[in-house]
């Protein structure tokens, strides 16, 4: 089979390689292209064999044909033996076998061809693809190459630039250096010049001075009408060595004075600061000492600190003494001790802080929860209470509404009446109390009145006595023995007064006994006609009281409703009356 394949393909390679694209065309129409060289392609042979069989094999040349076919079959590698042995006539069986084999062969080759064609297609497409990618890559390559060259070019240019810039920098640096040197040289030149100029100037000035001095400038003069005394009144002094020394002395004195004053102020300041320091120290010690005691109790604290604190206290004491000495040692000691104490204080404070914060944190956590729960409970309770109160109020309101809307309701009315009577009772009690008070006031007044009446009685008695005496004297004057009667007059008076006293007593008792009696009874006594109007006035003004009192008494027995309205009015009247009474 392999032989056949190669043989069949032998003429083709050149053709195949020559035109790859024509492969598909060949496979599509193999008979048309392969028919002229039919011998070359064995594949076309079986199809066309029947149509040309008549031309190829006749009755005459059967044997030759058979031989030929045999040869051909043999060359194909098949066993064409069957054909040889049938010499007399073409037997069908070997022929058919051969044919079958040939057909098989042909089919197989066909399939192979198909496969090959497919493979060919695949490979060609692969090839195409590869070619495409190849070309693309080539393009890319080209592109990158171009880019690369561009970059190279840029780099080159930049490098050039750098080079030029470096050159520039160098030249600039050179220039700067040059300029600096120029500047410095100029500066020196300038300085030199100025110095020269200045020297010249001074020389010129000197010369000018010289000239002026030489010339004895006529104009240079002072005209003073007369000399003026010195401001300090002293005469000018000659310049002598003594003077010089004195000046020096004065200068140093001034300086010394200044330094002394400055030192004094500094001393003052220093002492102030020392005081502050002392104070601070004391404070510090007082702050630290209780802590120290606690430190001793605490086993956690290291003993080093304790030792430090003790030593420090000593230092503090010693420094307090040395403070006054104000020497270097003392200062050092002082600063050291202060520093130590300060450090201790700081650490102490820090520890306290941390402790406090720790404790506070713990407490807060516990407390927070507790208090919150409590608070919530409380709030809940309060809310409930408020709710209850509200309900209560609501109910009351409703009841009131009902009562108002239906006054005919007997039961409620009775209930309400009960309420009202209770209220009334209260009010009455109050009023009773007021009445009592009033009564007391009246009593007081009555007493006053009785006293006044007694006084009046007395007065009247006196007056009547006077009148009697006067009448007596008159009478006696009319009688011839006037002189003799005069010494006896006082005795008569006494007798008269004694007789009036019991009468007054009698007068004062009735009002006390007859309390319920009206005050009008007072107006009846035989009061002196002269004094009547004033007492009457008093009565009139005071008559208000018994009237209102009677009114109140009368009303107490009356119905509740009317009392309600009048109560307040009465009260106000009473208060008014009381105010009026109080002065009496």
């Amino acid at each position, binding site marked *: 089979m392999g032989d056949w394949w190669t043989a069949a393909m032998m003429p083709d390679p050149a053709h195949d390689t020559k035109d790859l694209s024509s492969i598909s065309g060949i496979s599509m129409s193999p008979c048309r292209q392969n028919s002229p060289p039919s011998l070359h392609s064995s594949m076309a042979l079986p199809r066309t064999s029947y149509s040309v069989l008549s031309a190829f094999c006749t009755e005459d040349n059967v044997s030759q044909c058979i031989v030929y076919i045999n040869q051909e079959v043999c060359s194909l590698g098949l066993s064409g033996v069957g054909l040889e042995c049938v010499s007399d006539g073409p037997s069908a069986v070997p022929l058919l076998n051969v044919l079958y084999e040939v057909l098989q062969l042909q089919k197989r080759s066909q399939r192979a061809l198909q496969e090959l064609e497919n493979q060919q297609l695949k490979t060609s497409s692969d090839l195409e693809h590869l070619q495409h990618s190849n070309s693309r890559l080539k393009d890319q390559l080209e592109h990158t190459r171009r880019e690369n060259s561009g970059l190279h070019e840029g780099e080159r240019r930049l490098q050039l630039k750098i080079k030029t810039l470096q050159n520039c920098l160098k030249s600039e640096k050179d220039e700067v250096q040059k300029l600096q040197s120029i500047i410095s040289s100029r500066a020196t030149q300038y300085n030199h010049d*100025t*110095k020269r100029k*200045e*020297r010249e100037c*001074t020389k010129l*000035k000197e010369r*000018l*001075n010289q000239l*002026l001095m030489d010339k004895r*400038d*006529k*104009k*240079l*003069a*002072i*005209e*003073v*009408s*007369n*000399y*003026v*005394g*010195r*401001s*300090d009144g002293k005469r*000018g*002094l000659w*310049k002598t060595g003594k*003077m*010089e020394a004195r*000046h*020096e002395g*004065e*200068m*140093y004195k*001034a*300086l010394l004075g*200044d330094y002394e004053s*400055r030192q004094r102020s*500094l001393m003052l300041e220093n002492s102030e600061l020392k005081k502050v320091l002392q104070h601070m120290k004391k404070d510090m010690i007082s702050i630290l000492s209780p802590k120290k005691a606690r430190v001793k109790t605490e086993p956690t604290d290291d003993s080093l600190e304790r030792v430090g604190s003790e030593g420090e206290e000593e230092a503090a004491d010693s420094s307090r003494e040395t403070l006054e000495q104000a020497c270097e040692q003392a200062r050092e000691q002082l600063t050291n001790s202060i520093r130590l104490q300060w450090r201790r204080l700081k650490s102490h404070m820090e520890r306290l802080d941390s402790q406090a914060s720790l404790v506070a944190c713990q407490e807060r956590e516990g407390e927070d929860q507790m208090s919150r729960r409590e608070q919530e409970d409380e709030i809940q309770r309060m809310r409930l209470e408020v709710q209850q109160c509200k309900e209560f109020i609501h109910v009351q309101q409703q009841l009131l509404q009902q009562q108002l809307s239906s006054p005919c309701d007997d039961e409620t009315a009775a209930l309400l009446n009960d309420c009202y009577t209770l209220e009334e009772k209260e009010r009455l009690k109050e009023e009773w109390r007021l009445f009592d008070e009033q009564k007391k006031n009246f009593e007081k007044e009555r007493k006053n009145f009785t006293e006044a009446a007694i006084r009046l009685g007395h007065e009247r008695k006196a007056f009547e006595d006077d009148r009697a005496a006067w009448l007596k004297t008159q009478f006696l004057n009319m009688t011839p023995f006037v002189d003799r009667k005069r010494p006896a007059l006082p005795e008569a008076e006494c007798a008269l007064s004694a007789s009036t006293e019991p009468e007054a007593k009698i007068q004062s008792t009735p009002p006390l006994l007859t309390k319920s009696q009206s005050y009008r009874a007072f107006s009846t006594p035989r009061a002196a006609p002269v004094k009547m109007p004033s007492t009457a006035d008093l009565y009139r003004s005071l008559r208000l009281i018994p009237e209102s009192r009677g009114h109140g008494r009368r009303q107490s027995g009356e119905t509740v409703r009317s009392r309600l309205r009048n109560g307040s009015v009465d009260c106000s009247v009473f208060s008014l009356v009381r105010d009026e009474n109080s002065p009496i």
Partner: protein
Amino acid sequence: NFSEVLKQSNQLSKVSPDGKYMATCVQYRLMVRDINTLQIVHLYSCMDQVMHMEWSADSLFILCAMYKRGLVQVWSLEQPDWHCKIDEGSIGLVSSRWSPDGRHILNTTEFHLRITVWSLCTKSVSYIKYPKACQKGMDFTSDGRYMALAERRECKDYISVFVCDDWHLLRHFESETQDLAGLEWSPNGCVLAVWDSCLEYKMLLYSLDGRLLSSYSAYEWSLGIKSVTWSPSSQFLVIGSYDEKVRILNHITWKKITEFEHPGTISNSKAVVFKEMEKSAVVGRDDLSIHQLTVGNSLFSTQSKYEITQLPTQVPVIKPDLDRANPKIGISAMAFSADNRYLATKNDNMPQSLWVWDMQRLSLLAVLEQTAPVRCFNWDPCRPRLALCTGNTRVYLWSPAGCVSVNVPVEGSFQVQSLFWHCSGNSLILLSKEQLCLCYMDSDDKK
């Protein structure tokens, strides 16, 4: 509470040190007035227009210098017919001043060739050679006993300390400066502050006996010191420099205590910024014609008041030309109040603002922002009260309580160019170009 307007020329008007008289120059005339009545007490005629006028320390003499002629005339208050004339001759005269005792006159000749010391007591003359021409080359101690003088010889700076009584040279020493620019005694007269020219920041402090106590330099390679002032208590030495900062040195270690910056934006919440607001008087159109005739001048006048601005705020800053000599930048003027409590400073590139610092808290207290550049500012010699002018018709006063602007109620325009206080602090003398005016302070209603 303003006086009538008086004439003056060259802004030559000075109150005598005892506060009783005021001397004014008008052209060649010298008038001495009583400060209370403003009546002319004496009238003197000089030989030429007066360029400089000065009272002697004891208020007995007045010196009038006529630089063009090289002449100095001295007048006595006690004896009006007494006179003295000093002629410096052909050498010329550039500066003339009293010695503190009021009996000697120090004349500086042209080119700073020498200083001539004329004595009124003995008619004697003495010369001091080689004085240096600089910002402030000569200073007397406040008690008038010593004089320090900057000298230049052999291209080196020297300082001479003289005893003013008899012009005896007490000390002469070389100073460690490149180019000395100025020197100033401390108010207690024991320390001499010497500073270098603006090319170098260098401050030297010398004792009275010529020892160098300390030297201070804040920075290098930049323009340095512009102004120097002692506090009245000698406790602080303040240095204003071209970097827009004020540095304060203490009197014990001569080290810097603090420095005050003058930033363009004020954000310090403790400071108060007073901004002057100008408002033109509003006149209705209707009565314009009527008022124009009657009111005339006041129509164009503007009202001004201070407003406290919210912080932070911007201070107007001008851009100085740094290439030119003496650029307008840096602290050019500083002044302490009499009680040492406040310091007022002016930064040249913020010409419209005046800064007031509290020296107890060492912080900025107030900033006065004017509408025009500040011309002149002065502290009341008795109270913490600051007066300033900006070349317009108003005077501005600052005190810790607040700020007011007062219009000068004068016929015509009175543009206040400079001002100074009477030594009692009760009145303020305002100078315009050709006029002067007294402003009386009622301590009650100005508070």
